[in-house]
Every structure is written in structure tokens, then in C-alpha cells.
């Protein structure tokens, strides 16, 4: 299969020198964004971008941002601690996080901890629901979250300074500068967050002990125009964080955990007639240190370095047909105190086809195959279609096969790793309907997923815990999104709401998976009048089960954020705001035995200078 792809790719390469015509709009998009597939090949699925006004109201926690503005559920081990997403009732490993087009989920545990990413490091955040392994590889099963840095040539230099300070000595600082000339485009950001995080456990006369954290991140992206047809781009992201893992109601913790990640990518974009080629070279490192007792020098660690090369060629076959082929090869080198030192190499080839049948109707087809020196991967596919029946109604259908590869911990944990593991895989289908009326948009998506060979760590008869491809899980559910914008003179209103109904059951038990709420809803209402903005955001999180027999559960809860800000600036922005988080002072636990903060406050100041 792989050879077929290689052959295809070669054929496409040859074509490149034969055909020809430019398309400047397409070209611009390709230069501005590194992950252009997100817009180009996601017509049959739902992609939501978090807009600037949402991003500006979020201070600090990326986890809270997504909780309040998407259907994704998070399991957060106490405020600010490890936060694992669950998208459409799947696992954290089945939610892919894509940084400027490449997958950055941890090679060690397969997931991304959303408290080790700062939203301020990106100027475009997209959420793509449903399967996407053909485009984004391992982990894009429940959906994917896209973190992008857009590069603009020919723009004025713009400085942005953001700060927030609030309860529990929580401080956030962020500085961003971007700009571009004819030849250059750049964007630099630096962020620092810290908190004592010693909130009261409501009604318990004690505080969240040992929960303090800090992190700092630096991002840098730059683009250089070699000539009309060739661009070089460079992206870099560094994150360094330290958290004391907080205790629980019954445990006083002394743990400390450090994360250090670097992500660097060089990209060469080249246009030739109908062809756009992109060559990417990326080097990613991840490392953790875990101190059982922060006062002792003893710690365990794990680290993985990843080298990735990718060749991406897209061709405008005709006005109506786009074809895209991607080949990539990556090598992971892992080591750690608890894993065997191993190297693994994965190569893959994929081909995506999009055909605009008419102005209102298109379809997409995709296929991907992967080879690895460690395991066998299934052949993946995707097929989708979108039909705009009229201005009011659009219908989308999509089916795909997706997968998630075993992690270094699964494969090589000393003594208990299982080198025989296969990837988890999922067959899924969805139907989405979109209703538009004036400034109101309603989307209703139903989906069905069959997960197979799900990994779970289970003890064997002598008590040794090992991961096995044991579980079969069926997930189905409904996602509803409502967007509304209203304007009366100078009064602007915007309303967003979402509701997710999720049934995710192991086939053998017929019980809901633990930590997957059947109901989750959120809503936000923003009002602005001239220089003043007021907003209200609210979340309802349904009951979750904490044991696989569904005997134990955590109660449902809801909480809201309310805030107001005022812009003192004229040409520039000087925005001063105040917000109350967990307005209701709800005493809730997101993970058993770990109470979350009650009502707390924050002031923020944003300066925007041109």
C-alpha cells in the first residue's frame, strides 16, 4: 500500500513541472497559515474557531476556555493540575492537538495536558469535531484542537500587553508583538503564569495544599519571502512549567512535577503553477520530572525527542478539484527512569481529494496508510460530503476510520510495557445539519463511533499491570451549537451556546465510561455598548461515573463567570476589566476527592498599541 502512495507522490511531483496557473488567494492562505488543510478539507465536518473576543476574555486557563466555549469535557486533577480532554466521549489520547499542522500529543502518555499550554501563544485556535486521522494522524478520533500562529506580511507592527491578577495570588503576564514587511513577517510572544492556588475547600475548613504552580512560554514565528514563489517559515514554541501536585480531601501531597517542551519547525512553501509544495522539518522535545517528595532530590523522569519530516503537495487539478498528498516520516527517541530506551520510526502517506460538484455541493475523499517498525497500522480512510441546499439549510455527512497508536509508556514501561500492542482504531460516521437565519446559526450533529482494540492497563493473574488491546466501546451522541449576533444601534449582543449528549459504553459492561458526562452544556452572552463590554459565561456539567460499574459518581454541577471591561483608549486599546469566576460559589468536584475553587475574582488590563 505504501508503495502505491510513494508512486502516487512521484507522479504528482512530475506533474508539477508540466501544468500551470496561479491562484493568488489560495496562495495567500497557504502562506499565512501552516495548517491550511483545516479550512480546505473539513467541509463535511464541524470546525469552530475561537474568535478574538472570546480569547481576550480568557485569562490564564486554556482548560477553562475550552470548557466554556466548546463541547469538550475535561477531567482536571484539581485546578491547574493535569487536565485531560475527552472529545465526544473518547479518551484524552483520542483527542489530537495540532500545532501549526503537526501533532504534538505526548509520545509518553499520548495526550496533551491543557494546563501545559498557554492559549496566549497562538492567534488562531480551531476545534474540529470528529475523526481526522487521515489528515492529522494518531489520536484524531474524537476530534482535534488546532493551535496556529498566523503570519501576516505587509502589516503594521502591533504590540499587545496583557496582564491579569486575582484570587490566590494568581498572576498572568503576556506580551506579544507582530508585524510584517514586504519580505518579512514575524510574531513573538512571551507568557508567564503563576498562582499560589491555595483556595478554600468550601465547607471543609481547609485549603488546597501544595497546589502552587508557575509556567512560562515563549513563541516565535517568522516568515521570509524568498521570491514570489518561495517562502520560508519558522515556528518555535518553548514551554517550561512547574507544578506542585495538590493533595485531595484525604491526602496531603508533597509531589512536584516539572514539564519542559520545545517545538521547532522550519517550512518551505513553494508555488509552481497549479502546485503548492510544502516541506516541513520539525524537532520536538518533551520531558517531565516527577518528585514524589518535593523536599527530596529523588525524582523520576521521561523524555522523548521527535524528528519529523513532511512533504505536502497540493495540486489544483481543475477549478473544481483539489488533490493533496502528504508523506511524512518521524522518529521518536525515548528514554526515562521507568521506560526502556527505544527508538521508533513511523512513515505515512496520505492522499486527499476534494471535488466541488457545483457551487452548493462538494465531496471529499481521503486515504492514509502508515508503516512503523513497531506495530501494524490499519488503513485509514475518510469520505464526506456537504450540500448547501439553500441559504437556510446545509447538510453534511462524513464517515471515517481513525486510530491512535500505543505510547512509549504503553509499549516500553519497564517490566510491564507490552511491545505487542496494536493501535486502537475507530470506525465512525456523522451527520451534521446547519441552519442559518439572519444572524443566527444552529448546528446539530449526530455521530456514532465504534472503537476497537482500546488500550487499558489491567492486572494479570499474578498482579502485574499491563496494557492490553482489550476494550470495545461504542459511542454515540449529539452536539448542538447555537450562535447569534444582534445589533440595535450601538448595542451589540452575541450569544453562543452548546449542548452535548454523549453515550460512551463499553460493549461488555453496557455501562458509561468513567469520567464521561452524559450531558454537558455551556452558554455565553456578551453585550457591548461603545467602549464597554459585559459578559456572562456559564457551564453545566452532568453527573460523571467514577467507577466502571457506575456505582460511584460525582454530582452534576454548574458555575458561571461574569465580567465587565472598559476601553480607555482612543486609537489604541487600553482595556481594564474585572471578572467573577464561579459566581455561584458552587462546591464541586471534577475529579473525585478534589474540590475545585469557589467564587474568586480577577482584574485584567490589556494594552494594544499600533
Amino acid at each position, binding site marked *: 500500500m505504501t508503495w502505491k502512495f510513494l508512486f502516487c507522490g512521484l507522479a504528482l511531483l512530475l506533474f508539477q513541472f508540466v501544468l500551470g496557473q496561479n491562484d493568488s488567494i489560495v496562495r495567500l492562505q497557504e502562506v499565512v497559515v501552516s495548517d491550511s488543510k483545516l479550512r480546505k478539507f473539513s467541509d463535511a465536518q464541524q470546525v469552530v474557531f475561537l474568535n478574538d473576543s472570546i480569547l481576550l476574555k480568557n485569562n490564564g486557563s486554556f482548560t477553562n476556555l475550552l470548557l466554556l466555549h466548546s463541547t469538550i469535557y475535561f477531567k482536571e486533577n484539581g485546578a491547574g493540575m493535569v487536565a485531560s480532554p475527552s472529545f465526544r466521549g473518547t479518551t484524552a489520547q483520542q483527542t489530537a492537538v495540532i500545532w501549526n499542522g503537526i501533532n504534538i500529543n505526548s509520545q509518553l502518555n499520548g495526550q496533551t495536558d491543557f494546563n501545559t499550554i498557554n492559549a496566549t501563544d497562538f492567534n488562531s485556535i480551531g476545534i474540529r469535531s470528529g475523526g481526522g486521522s487521515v489528515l492529522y494522524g494518531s489520536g484524531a478520533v474524537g476530534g482535534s484542537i488546532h493551535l496556529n500562529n498566523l503570519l501576516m506580511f505587509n502589516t503594521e507592527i502591533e504590540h499587545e500587553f496583557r496582564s491579569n491578577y486575582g484570587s490566590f495570588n494568581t498572576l498572568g503576564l503576556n506580551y506579544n508583538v507582530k508585524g510584517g514587511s514586504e519580505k518579512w513577517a514575524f510574531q513573538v510572544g512571551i507568557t508567564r503564569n503563576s498562582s499560589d492556588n491555595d483556595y478554600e475547600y468550601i465547607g471543609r475548613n481547609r485549603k488546597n495544599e501544595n497546589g502552587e504552580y508557575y509556567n512560562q512560554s515563549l513563541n516565535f514565528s517568522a516568515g521570509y519571502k524568498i521570491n514570489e514563489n518561495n517562502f520560508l517559515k519558522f515556528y518555535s514554541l518553548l514551554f517550561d512549567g512547574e507544578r506542585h501536585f495538590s493533595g*485531595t*480531601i484525604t491526602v496531603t501531597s508533597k509531589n512536584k512535577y516539572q514539564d519542559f517542551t520545545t517545538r521547532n519547525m522550519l517550512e518551505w512553501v513553494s508555488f509552481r503553477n497549479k502546485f503548492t509544495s510544502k516541506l516541513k522539518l520539525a524537532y520536538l522535545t518533551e520531558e517531565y520530572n516527577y518528585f*514524589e517528595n518535593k523536599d*527530596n532530590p*529523588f525524582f*523520576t523522569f521521561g523524555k522523548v525527542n521527535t524528528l519529523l519530516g513532511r512533504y505536502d503537495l497540493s495540486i489544483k487539478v481543475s477549478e473544481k478539484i483539489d488533490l493533496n498528498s502528504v508523506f511524512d516520516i518521524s522518529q521518536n527517541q525515548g528514554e526515562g527512569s521507568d521506560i526502556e530506551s527505544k527508538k521508533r520510526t513511523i512513515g505515512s502517506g496520505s492522499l486527499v481529494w476534494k471535488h466541488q460538484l457545483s457551487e452548493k455541493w462538494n465531496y471529499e475523499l481521503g486515504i492514509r496508510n502508515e508503516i512503523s517498525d513497531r506495530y501494524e497500522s490499519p488503513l485509514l480512510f475518510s469520505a464526506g460530503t456537504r450540500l448547501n441546499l439553500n441559504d437556510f439549510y446545509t447538510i453534511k455527512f462524513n464517515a471515517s476510520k481513525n486510530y491512535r497508536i500505543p505510547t512509549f509508556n504503553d509499549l516500553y514501561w519497564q517490566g510491564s510495557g507490552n511491545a505487542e500492542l496494536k493501535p486502537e482504531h475507530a470506525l465512525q460516521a456523522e451527520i451534521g445539519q446547519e441552519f442559518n437565519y439572519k444572524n443566527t446559526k444552529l448546528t446539530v450533529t449526530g455521530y456514532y463511533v465504534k472503537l476497537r482494540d482500546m488500550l487499558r492497563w489491567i*492486572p494479570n493473574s*499474578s498482579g502485574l499491570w499491563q496494557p492490553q488491546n482489550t476494550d470495545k466501546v461504542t459511542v454515540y451522541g449529539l452536539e448542538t451549537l447555537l450562535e447569534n449576533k444582534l445589533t440595535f444601534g450601538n448595542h451589540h449582543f452575541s450569544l453562543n451556546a452548546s449542548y452535548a449528549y454523549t453515550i460512551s459504553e463499553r460493549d461488555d459492561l453496557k455501562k458509561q465510561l468513567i469520567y464521561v458526562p452524559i450531558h454537558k452544556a455551556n452558554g455565553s452572552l456578551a453585550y457591548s455598548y461603545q467602549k464597554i463590554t459585559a459578559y456572562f459565561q456559564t457551564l453545566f456539567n452532568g453527573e460523571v461515573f467514577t467507577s466502571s460499574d457506575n456505582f460511584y459518581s460525582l454530582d452534576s454541577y454548574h458555575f458561571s463567570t461574569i465580567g465587565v471591561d472598559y476601553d480607555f483608549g482612543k486609537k489604541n486599546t487600553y482595556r481594564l476589566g474585572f471578572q467573577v469566576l464561579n459566581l455561584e460559589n458552587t462546591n464541586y468536584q471534577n475529579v*473525585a*476527592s478534589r474540590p475545585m475553587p469557589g467564587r474568586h475574582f480577577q482584574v485584567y488590563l490589556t494594552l494594544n498599541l499600533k
Partner: protein
Amino acid sequence: MNFKKLSILAIAAGLFITSCSDDDQKEKSLGDYDNGLLILNQGNFGGGNSSISFWSDDLLTFQLNAFSAVNPSIELGDTGQDIGFLNEKAFVVMNNSNSIQVINRYTLQHITTISSGLSNPRNITFSNGKGYVTNWGSGMNPNDDYIAVINLTNYTVISSIPVVEGPEKIIEHNDNLYVAHQGGFGFGETISVINTTNNTVSNTINVGYVPNSMFISNNTLYVLSGGLPSWSGNESGGKLSKINLSTNNVASSLDFGSTQHPSNLVEEDGQLYYTIDSDVYKASITTTSLPTTPIFSTTAQGVYGVYSFTVEDNKIYVGDAVDYNSNGKIYIYSLNGSLIDQQTVGVIPAGFYFND
């Protein structure tokens, strides 16, 4: 308080009772939980969901979460490891909470909590009017393990006795403590002997790797070692060591097959019992060879590795942790392995303690 009142209390606390009766109380009952079995459910590490279940001797009354029913405002804690009885008190060792809950063993009324001086506490015993608790210290540090000495009048840790890594089971005999070094994060192979008149380690006895259970009978210490597990990369079989307590020398030892890793050694009426994976074995304590066939296997009940085990009054008790996340199961068998009864208990049943 009779069981009717208790059940009302339990329901009010949102808890769970499967059955109750008020006509079967024994004449000399010392409390609602006298004449029955306490099951310590470990709960999940970090989950704070440790619990105590109760099952009466006549098997007619069962309560899933007895401690919470009696003490609705007190959490038992995280990762219950062991219960030690002394007179009318029970000392419940909470490993991850680094604490000991002192309760009345017959009423389960909470008395106090010992919460300082303990670091990764494991098991408890008593000698010379004091409590002795094995502590791993920081799991990653092999050199900070100790036995905490507890004043039983004011419930404080008054001193500690440093020992080698991974002290686990601890038993008392004639003013001596015998501490099995199962090994903690590593693999131990010794028994420390501690004289409780001066609280010092007086002797070290070499046994097999990973000593996990022991008992004393006729001035002989019987130690069962599991051997090195396969994942250690250097697998070895288990060993049963018999130690003469007059000399502290190993009088004899019996080796298991190189891939056999026995555990759960107990003694009842001159017989010793232990388990390998899901199978239960029995031999005379004077045996000079190991039985080759089990008396029965628990696989018929779906038990996947015996998690906790004991033998009492001609009945064999087996705890099954199921998937280590759901409520566990306990099974009661006759001595020849026929199933007498079973019960769903709390998460990860870790030990059986008889209030008789």
C-alpha cells in the same frame, strides 16, 4: 443503637444497606459491629474512597459502607492498608493519607486520627503497650524507612526505629517484632527482629525475595516469600522459610517452582494456607514438601488473582479486586473449596478482620 436506627441513619446519609435485622443481636454484643467481619476496602490510590464493609457472622446482615454510616462527616481516608485490633479499639492504617484512624472496633465510632509522624504507613501491631507501624518513607528513597512507635494513651508517634527498605508485614511475639522487608519500590529479602524493650533491631534473618506474609506457631516463624517477579528481568520462584525463634536461624526452607509466586500465607488449626494466582493451597505446618495441586481454584467465580485472603473458623475468605475500580467481591468457601456465600464490598477489598 439497633440496626433499624442505623439503617435510617445510613439512608439519611445517602448510603447503602442491603439488608438489616434487629432480632439477631447476640446477648453480649459490644456494639452493632460485634460478632462479624470487618472488610477493609483500600479504595483507589489518590481517590480518597477507602471504606469498611461489615458482614455479620451469621451472614444475614451486610453493610457496604459501615464506617461512613456511623461517622457521616468523617472521611476514612486514602488507601486503607491494614487494621490492627487492641482491646476495644481498631487502628486503621491509611497509607496515602499518612494517617491512622483510631476507632471503636465494635461501634466503629471514630475516636481520633494520628496524622503526624507517619510516612507511607503500611501495617500495624502492638507490643509492650505501644503500637508499631511499618513506614516506607518516601517510596523513591531507599534509606528513610522506619518503624513508628506510637504512644497508645495520647495517640502520638513518640519515636521511630530506622530499618532497611520496604518494611511491610509486622508481627509480635514475646516482646520481639518481626518485620518482613517486602521491599517497597525495590525487592527485599530479610526479616528484621526488633526488641521492644529497647526498640532496637537485634537481628536480621535472610529469607527468600519479597517476603509478603508470615505467622508464628510453636516458636517457629513461617515466612512466605513471593520471589522476584518476571518483570524484574531476573525472575525467581517463591520460598517458604521456617525460622527457629530461639536461635533466629532458618531451620528449613521449601522452594517453589521458578515461575511460581505464592502469597497470602495464613495458619489455621495446624494447617497452612496460601495462594498462587487464583489457586488456594493447603499443607500441614510440619510439611517437608509443598503440595503440587491446589485444594481449589477461585476462577469459577471469575476471580483473577486473589487480592486478599484468610481462613477463619473452617471458612476460607477470598477478596477479589475485580477491575480495581468497581466495587470488589468477597467469596466465602468451605475448607474443601465449595462456595458458601459471596458479597459485593467496597473498592479493592484489602483485608479481613474478625470482631469475635
